[in-house]
């Protein structure tokens, strides 16, 4: 957003209210990038569909361009062949960004421990929230989303991630 880069604001006495407003906005308007590859992505579709309705949490604007998203949802097994692409997509998302590892495969490799699967996406990119399950139920996904929101709530423009210090 650019506000963070302002040294004056960062050092001003209004940091608290600015944080509160920014975080409130960000928290309830996550734009997820659905990096769905496998079975978990079908459950992600279910979360986005009418029954579970992700828009109740303000996150229904699902983007497929990393440049328009701030929440990277990785659903599904990541193979070694896919790994560089995931890294690239992550790098293309602008700060601030958050990452949810959706499903056992993304958390740890899940039931696949063999020559072609990555053993957890945290070996490639940083992860904020891990949602376990194979696949996680839609409720678990929403729980993970709320956890992301909690993380956002606790952030400040003074965090090293924003001021790059």
């Amino acid at each position, binding site marked *: 957003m650019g506000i963070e880069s302002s040294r004056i604001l960062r050092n001003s006495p209004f940091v608290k209210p600015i944080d509160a407003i920014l975080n409130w906005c960000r928290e309830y308007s996550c734009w997820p990038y*659905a*990096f*769905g*590859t*496998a*079975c978990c*992505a*079908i*459950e992600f*579709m*279910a979360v986005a*569909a*009418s*029954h579970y309705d992700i828009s109740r949490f303000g996150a229904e604007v699902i983007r*497929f361009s*990393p440049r328009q998203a701030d929440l990277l949802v990785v659903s*599904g*097994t990541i*193979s*070694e*062949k*896919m*790994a*560089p*692409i995931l890294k*690239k*997509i992550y790098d293309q998302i602008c700060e601030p960004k958050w990452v949810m590892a959706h499903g056992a495969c993304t958390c740890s490799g899940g*039931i*696949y*421990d*063999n*020559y*072609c*699967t990555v053993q957890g996406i945290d070996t490639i990119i940083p992860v904020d929230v891990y949602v376990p399950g*194979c*696949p996680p*139920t839609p409720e678990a996904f929403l729980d993970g989303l709320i956890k992301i929101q909690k993380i956002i709530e606790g952030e400040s423009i003074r965090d090293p991630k924003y001021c790059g210090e």
Partner: protein
Amino acid sequence: MADLVAQTLLEKFPEAVSLAPDFRDEEAVCVTRESIIQVLRFLYSNPDTEYTLLEDICGADYPGREDRFEVVYQLYSLKTGGHVRLKVGLQEEDPTLPTAIGIYKAADWFEREAFDQYGIRFEGHPNLRRVLNHEDFVGHPLRKDYPIKKRQKLTRPTNLGWEEGQSRGNGDGSEQTGEEPEWMTLNIGPAHPTMHGTLRILARLEGETILKAEPEIGYLHRGFEKTSEALTYQQVIPLTDRLNYCSAMMNNVGYCRAVEKLLGIEVSKRVQYIRVIVSELSRIIDHLVCIAANLVDIGALTPYWYCFRERENVYELLEALCGSRLTTSYTRIGGLSHDLPDGWVDKCREYIRDRIPRAIEETETLITKNRIFVDRTSGVGAISADEALNWGFTGPCLRASGVPFDVRKANPYYDYDKFDFDIPVGSNGDTYDRYLVRMEEMRQSLRIIEQALDGLPEGPISVEDRRVSLPEKDAVYTKFGPLVQHTKLIVDGIVPPEGEVYSVTEAANGVLGFYIVSDGTKRPYRIKVRPPCFAIFQALPQLVEGSMIADLIAIVGSLNIIAGELDR
């Protein structure tokens, strides 16, 4: 009829053909590699047999044998309804044999896969590259001496040798005359919504018209086959869920049926009927996802909400059976994990009478006569019946081209011959026909479920066979025999006799085959899945050539490519 083929081959090619060991009445012959093409051509064109459908080619590795590698062809004849398996042994020093592409176009990717996984070379193949593993991979993972956990990192995205951006020329390095069109290479996917996250297509464009396209797959390769070699037969069931994850039940059924064939057991009528019911429910939700996703891709979001609502209802039914929505693992070898819970039948009846037909109806009214949809899909991505068959199409995509082939009718299993249902076929083989066929298939599935619910017999849900089914818990605690049997089954698992089988079922996307080789131990020696999408997706370049990019999106959606079974 069945035995005729092997006999005919023996008479016709006495030098080249020998009978493979007889097992479970399957027809299998060994062929020398010098004559394999002749034999294939004979089988293909012999008017008595017409083995026009090449279902699968796969490799196998037997270290210690004189011929270390084996290439296995599975052929099917629509005329006689018979399968035949051809096996070619190859020595370790020189694992080469001629390609079958000249006869069956379907051989293309299957041969590439055998090359990728086993290092078997097919001479004359125009594009013998790796297909599932990445290009920097060293070695051949399915060989028995490749350690299962030896991972190889890839640090850059796969390069297909096509330069992105604008260029002029024929693109094949041939000399330029200066009159070639100016074209542009566009990379689509895998991180692209309509490529379902895992498919990648490079398209060479002139304006918006596709001159040439090259699909690249393997982004979801999860090593199903290698992993299953390290598990026991029961433990493989959860892995089968994750093949076609839109209709996991059907993979469960297909796999268990293959192992049951290997063991030579027949499940009870009740189990068969329940399997039919859950399979058909899965077919419906699979088609719902396919249609919904296809429509979203081409810009119609509303039907997606309707389709997914009904899908949730079916999930409710499946969850009641096995506690899980997607990854069901409901079947067991020799039966099922649980019987139907109380009240399930009534609930299922209610759904199939009221709810699901309503969803179909609603989508129908929204879409079938929708001008935009019809304009965007009719005549788009058409393929003729012969071509489709030659590419190895099965399932709705083949039937849309007008071939009424359905395993449920052609080689009925589980009492499918007793149910009254029709096989819808299309006439043009285009995207619109594929949509119509799927719509009608859902209705037919409802009919089958209704009849199966009406005729649902009572009976045990597990076979009485000491080799596969656990004894009653009470007996385990009180009697010695059952205790031993229980311990043996848990520790050793199921141990089928030595032999190999190939068993097919009609899954949502077409013929789902399992080729299982047992060496008489508790772990499968080799499992090869014949995934219906794999054969279908390789025909994509032909389907999209000359059409627009927007058509490509519609076509890919209508083929219903599920990466889980495509890449395994």
